């Protein structure tokens, strides 16, 4: 275990209350005991943790909030026939939304996307924020058939490292007019690893045949081209862990 790996493990634990029965945590703690540099960092981290915890938990709360909550139904629910007002508000909001949409559609400049970087941020952002598999199964053949039936590209080859993980399901995304197959795997820490597969576009910044490892949002990613097939693998893990999945 490297110092950086130990730091990563210890960062996700509550200092002083680490689960020593977890072998990885135990190894990281042992390294923190024997490596002077890591020990110093760990002491600083403990002080940091205590200070942030204390700071956040001592943020003052408005003194009248409790009373307002207890008087809640009166304060929040509004008048008796609130649904009449609500219907008017909804109708007005719908009309405004329609006009805005119309204006946006009519006035929008013809914006052709787009770069590979935007595409990659878009698909990763989608699974990070609104994640949902359309098919949950551990059967790769079912996944391939499902994607194919939805018009999504299904002639992918799963990298050898990724084949070691459990497949959990898949979904179909759309980004920049492109249908994207999304396969979801789970690693031994129950961490999700996504593989996005699409047919390549003529982006100037498209990856090459050699996997390009970069960090995007909170994920380590690897991207590469194989013929006209584009692969992006992403997971909320370190770059070195991701490389092992290729």
């Amino acid at each position, binding site marked *: 275990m490297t110092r950086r790996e130990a730091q990563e493990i210890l*960062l996700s634990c*509550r200092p002083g209350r680490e689960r020593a029965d977890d072998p990885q945590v135990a190894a990281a703690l042992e390294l923190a005991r024997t490596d002077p540099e890591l020990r110093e960092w760990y002491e*600083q981290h403990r002080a940091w943790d205590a200070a942030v915890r204390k700071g956040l938990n001592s943020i003052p709360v408005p003194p009248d*909030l409790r009373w307002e909550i207890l008087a809640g139904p009166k304060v*929040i629910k509004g008048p008796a026939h609130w649904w009449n007002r609500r219907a008017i508000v909804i109708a007005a909001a719908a009309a405004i939304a329609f006009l805005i949409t119309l204006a946006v559609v009519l006035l929008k400049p013809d914006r052709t996307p787009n770069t590979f*970087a*935007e595409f990659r941020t878009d698909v990763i952002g989608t699974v990070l924020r609104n994640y949902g598999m359309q098919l949950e199964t551990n059967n790769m053949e079912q996944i391939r058939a499902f994607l194919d039936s939805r018009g999504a590209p299904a002639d992918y080859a799963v990298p050898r490292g990724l084949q070691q993980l459990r497949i959990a399901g898949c979904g179909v995304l759309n980004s920049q007019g492109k249908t994207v197959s999304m396969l979801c795997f789970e690693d031994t*820490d129950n*961490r999700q690893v996504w593989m996005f597969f699409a047919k390549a576009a003529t982006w100037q910044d498209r990856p090459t045949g050699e996997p390009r490892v970069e960090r995007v949002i909170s994920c380590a990613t690897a991207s590469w081209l194989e013929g006209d097939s584009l692969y992006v693998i992403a997971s909320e*893990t370190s770059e070195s862990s991701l490389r092992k999945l290729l």
Partner: protein
Amino acid sequence: MAGKLDFEVLVDRYYAPLFRFALSLTRKESDARDLTQQTFWLWARKGHQLHDPAKVKSWLFTTLHREFLQGQRRSTRFPHHELEEVPEELPNVPSTLVNDLDGGIILECLGRIDPIFQAPLALFYLEDHSYQEIADVLGIPLGTVKSRIARGIAQLQHVVLRREKRSRS
């Protein structure tokens, strides 16, 4: 669970941490107040459907977070290229700086890190939520919770250091 006495007990127990969690998400006191009130209002209406008293805390935090996300979806789009990368090297935060941290500074800095990390970090530091509770509240797997906490802390430390550097210059 939703009787008057229970409701008051529940408010006394959770309104402060819920408000702080809401403030860490919105960073506006008025919005945090509304979210906290809305959460208890929803509890008053729907809390009786929850049969396991052990899950009250998770229910309240989950509901508040969901209400926050619904508001966000109405008002924001996913930003491109505005997110801060997490450098590989972890910073050393000097003890003098750690000693000066207070709730206001932490909230300010929390608001500058990637939104993906904000809620897990706030829950991690507030109220001693377990990892499983954080996973339940945010609807993400346990491993993801740990990753986000680790990366969120690293990003928060960088932001705190940069803030300090700016205030000195």
